[in-house]
């Protein structure tokens, strides 16, 4: 834990910081596969550039075992992606089924087990849809064509004379019929298929989709409603102990001395100290926690001074890397535009730190056997956790296996593998498997949070009310979503690092939420200064046709003009739009402010979203609903409070996430744009909600709230007014 900005694990293209890594082509032993996934015919595929999620080497083709035909008629498909509620399991299952020409229930998707699956990169940044789905489709299609060619050779007919439907290959003659399952049962074919298949295969076009584009339910949904599914925190191994870690009383504190005698006298307790790491393991969590408490009573710490939340924005400003060495994106001359402007506006916006707070906190089980380490953990990139663990214990990666069971939420918060590391250390010391389950308080305190932001804006309008200058300095959150989609001849846009008092990292859509909040709220301020309707003002300047389309759609469904005209006192309407990760969003909201008690009620949210061809409509709807509701938290109430190196509200009773009672009437309009590749849909729908609310507040009360969260500030300003 340091008190500096952790850029190494922060910004969304996280693997760009890892270009020094070499990725060996995927190799696996046939024997291990047979042991783990059963008998069948494994098909090895050479994957093209679509598989190369990492931007550093797009040309290299990787060899991946993606597909195995099983003798029971099912087909195993392998992917390194993790399922954390975003729907990857379903979507990848559909993709494989589509290209193999089978129903989705024939696919057994094996996810995130380093012993079995190719490295598909981190599950983050909305990358599963644009990168992994094409890679899986390509692998599945290559397998299908290999089978077609094999059958054609057997029957001595041309491959394109065959049809494949529901896993059955049919030839021109009546007796020419071959099932995938038959091929899986023919061991003499193994050699034929062992050579990597390399086909330039056309994928099924959107118009011909049979399985993709459908609302296929999550394959393991039944295990979720019956409690049978084992999340990372539910894994139990024979003889397993539960581990607890001694945490520092404040960030940056170092352990000077500690006495283990009380803990060591407790029955069945294992105590471990390695440098600053102190942990205890015991047959149950209660005893492990009691042992750590006994140790904590004796611990002497050296603390360091730490910036508190009341000084946060001054601190970020003071340490902002905005000097002469910064490299803003510039166009024309902002200074000239401002000098020539009829109207110049300046404003700054603040965004507080928030936590992801996935309902399942970090959890892992580690087990050492014959010098080999197996870890079950809730992490977003099993192969990186594997490398991190191997590095920490000084062993080759082949001796570490990481398995990520479908886990209880992440939202960008589980890129790191702390619990896995802790469990592995304790398991090694205890000589038996150990589970480490972080408490909610640990998750709030020691997990990285979404960066706070200070964003300074300047805008210039000419006599016609046209935007002529745009100056946007975003301090600390990162560069996601920082570009403006509006036409402006003079601009200066800078993403500046700073010194973050809290450990920070990725979050659903990361900086795009802060940057869109500031940009869309400031556009609203400019529209008001230009005495223009906020919708007209945006449409007049928008240079992006996809954003324009969703903005117009949302405004039409919301009946923007009439709703705005007819609003009653203390009611307000606001809108916002934006783009990120190649998808586009617009939201309109209607609110009512209660001046007496300083509260706000959201009466209606109307959001339009487009991310190319929709691969699973029900799944996408869940993601958009989830983004809107999740976005309400940091927009209205969520804020990590901290002082003297301590988080002051590390619990749900003090840190209010959205609940059922916060659900407003929401209508969502998903645009199915089929003439382009699909983009991910689990992040961008979050970015429009906060600025739309901020703009509606202005519309209702006539003053601006320039910070997230907004409710406290609104109540305070209403009181002052």
């Amino acid at each position, binding site marked *: 834990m340091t008190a500096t900005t952790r850029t190494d694990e922060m910004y969304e293209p996280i693997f760009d910081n890892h270009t020094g890594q070499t990725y060996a082509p995927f190799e696996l032993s046939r024997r291990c596969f047979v042991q783990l996934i059963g008998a069948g015919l494994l098909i090895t595929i050479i994957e093209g550039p679509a598989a190369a999620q990492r931007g550093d080497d797009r040309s290299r083709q990787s060899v991946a075992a993606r597909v195995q035909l099983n003798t029971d008629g099912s087909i195993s498909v392998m992917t390194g992606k993790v399922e*954390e*509620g*975003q*729907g990857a399991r379903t979507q990848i299952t559909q993709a494989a089924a589509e290209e193999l020409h089978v129903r989705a229930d024939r696919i057994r998707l094996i996810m995130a087990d380093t012993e079995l699956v190719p490295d598909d990169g981190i599950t983050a940044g909305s990358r599963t849809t644009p990168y992994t789905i094409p890679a899986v489709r390509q692998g599945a299609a290559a397998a299908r064509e290999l089978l077609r060619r094999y059958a054609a050779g057997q029957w001595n007919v041309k491959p394109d004379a065959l049809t494949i439907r529901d896993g059955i290959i049919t030839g021109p003659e009546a007796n020419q019929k071959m099932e995938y399952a038959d091929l899986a049962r023919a061991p003499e074919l193994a050699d034929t298929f062992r050579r990597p298949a390399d086909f330039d295969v056309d994928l099924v076009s959107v118009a011909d989709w049979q399985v993709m584009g459908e*609302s296929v*339910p*999550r394959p393991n*949904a*039944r295990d*979720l*409603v*019956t*409690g*049978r*599914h*084992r*999340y990372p*925190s*539910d894994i*139990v191994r024979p003889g397993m102990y*539960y581990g607890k870690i001694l945490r520092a009383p404040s960030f940056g504190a170092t352990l000077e001395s500690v006495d283990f005698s009380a803990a060591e006298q407790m029955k069945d307790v294992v105590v471990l100290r390695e440098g600053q790491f102190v942990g205890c393991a015991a047959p*149950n*969590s*209660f*005893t492990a926690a009691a042992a750590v408490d006994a140790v904590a009573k004796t611990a002497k710490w050296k603390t360091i001074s730490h910036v508190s939340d009341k000084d946060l924005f001054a601190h970020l400003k003071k340490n902002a890397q905005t000097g002469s060495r910064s490299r803003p994106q510039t166009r024309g001359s902002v200074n000239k535009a401002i000098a020539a402007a009829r109207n110049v506006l300046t404003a700054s916006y603040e965004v507080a730190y928030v936590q*992801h*707070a*996935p*309902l*399942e*906190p970090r959890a892992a089980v580690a087990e050492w056997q014959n010098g080999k380490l197996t870890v079950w953990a809730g992490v977003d990139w099993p192969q990186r956790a594997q490398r991190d663990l191997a590095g920490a214990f000084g062993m080759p990666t082949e001796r570490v296996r990481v398995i990520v069971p*479908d*886990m*209880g*939420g992440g*939202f960008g918060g589980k890129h790191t593998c702390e619990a896995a590391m802790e469990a592995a250390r304790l398991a090694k010391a205890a000589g038996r498997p150990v589970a480490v*389950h972080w*408490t*909610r*308080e640990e998750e709030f305190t020691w997990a990285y949070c979404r960066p706070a932001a200070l964003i300074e804006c300047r805008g210039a309008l000419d006599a016609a009310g046209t935007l002529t200058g745009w100056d946007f300095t975003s301090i600390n959150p990162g560069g996601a979503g920082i570009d403006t989609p509006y036409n402006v001849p003079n601009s200066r846009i800078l993403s500046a690092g700073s010194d973050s008092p809290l450990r920070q990292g990725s979050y659903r859509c990361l900086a795009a939420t802060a940057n869109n909040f500031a940009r869309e709220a400031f556009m609203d301020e400019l529209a008001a200064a230009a005495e223009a309707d906020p919708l007209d003002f945006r449409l007049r300047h928008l240079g992006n046709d996809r954003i324009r389309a969703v903005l117009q759609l949302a405004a039409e469904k919301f009946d923007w003009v009439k709703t705005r005209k007819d609003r009653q006192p203390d009611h307000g309407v606001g809108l916002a739009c934006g783009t990120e990760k190649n998808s586009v969003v617009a939201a309109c909201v209607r609110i009512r402010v209660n001046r007496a008690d300083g509260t706000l009620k959201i009466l209606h949210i109307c959001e339009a979203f487009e991310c190319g061809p929709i691969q699973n409509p*029900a*799944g996408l709807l*869940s993601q958009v*609903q*989830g*983004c*809107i*509701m*999740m976005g309400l938290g940091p927009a209205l109430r969520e804020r990590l409070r901290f002082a003297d190196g301590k988080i002051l509200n590390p*619990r*749900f*009773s003090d840190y209010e*996430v*959205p*609940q*059922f*009672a*916060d*659900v407003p009437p*929401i209508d969502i309009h998903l645009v199915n744009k089929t003439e382009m590749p699909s983009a991910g849909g689990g992040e961008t729908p979050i970015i429009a909600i906060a600025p739309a609310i901020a703009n509606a507040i202005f519309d209702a009360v006539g003053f601006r709230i320039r910070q997230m969260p907004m409710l406290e500030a609104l109540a305070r300003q209403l009181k002052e007014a």
Partner: protein
Amino acid sequence: MEVTIEFNVNGQKVSVTTDTRRSLLEVLREDLNLTGTKYGCGEGQCGACTVLIDGRAVRSCVMPAASAQGKTIVTIEGLSDGNQLHPVQQAFLDEGAMQCGYCTPGMVLSAVALLQRNPNPTDEQIVRGMNGNICRCNGYVKIIGAVRRAAAMRR
């Protein structure tokens, strides 16, 4: 201090010897291997640990295990009738009312208790009855739909 407690869980009598300070949640998960009941907050704020005790929804993370003595407990593992899902479970499946699904056991059991008290809740009553069960994927809209559907299925 250790005590031996006996209670009925999912139709089976069990006897557990445990420190009196341990929570019912921990005993269910760690001693009885009933991991369908989840930890989410440890302060009774999120509902992930909800179980039914004598038909009422209870937060097992803040309930001392010792107070389960003599009680009849249903966890998510014991809700279905063999292969036949409980109508609320079926409604959650039919609505696709889960994302990561970690809150689902607590949501389902809270909904079961709600519908026992009030078989025909209005949307407002569903919200009031379910509030306090947190879904961090924020799938509240579909969960409300699932409770509504379950109520209709039981009519």
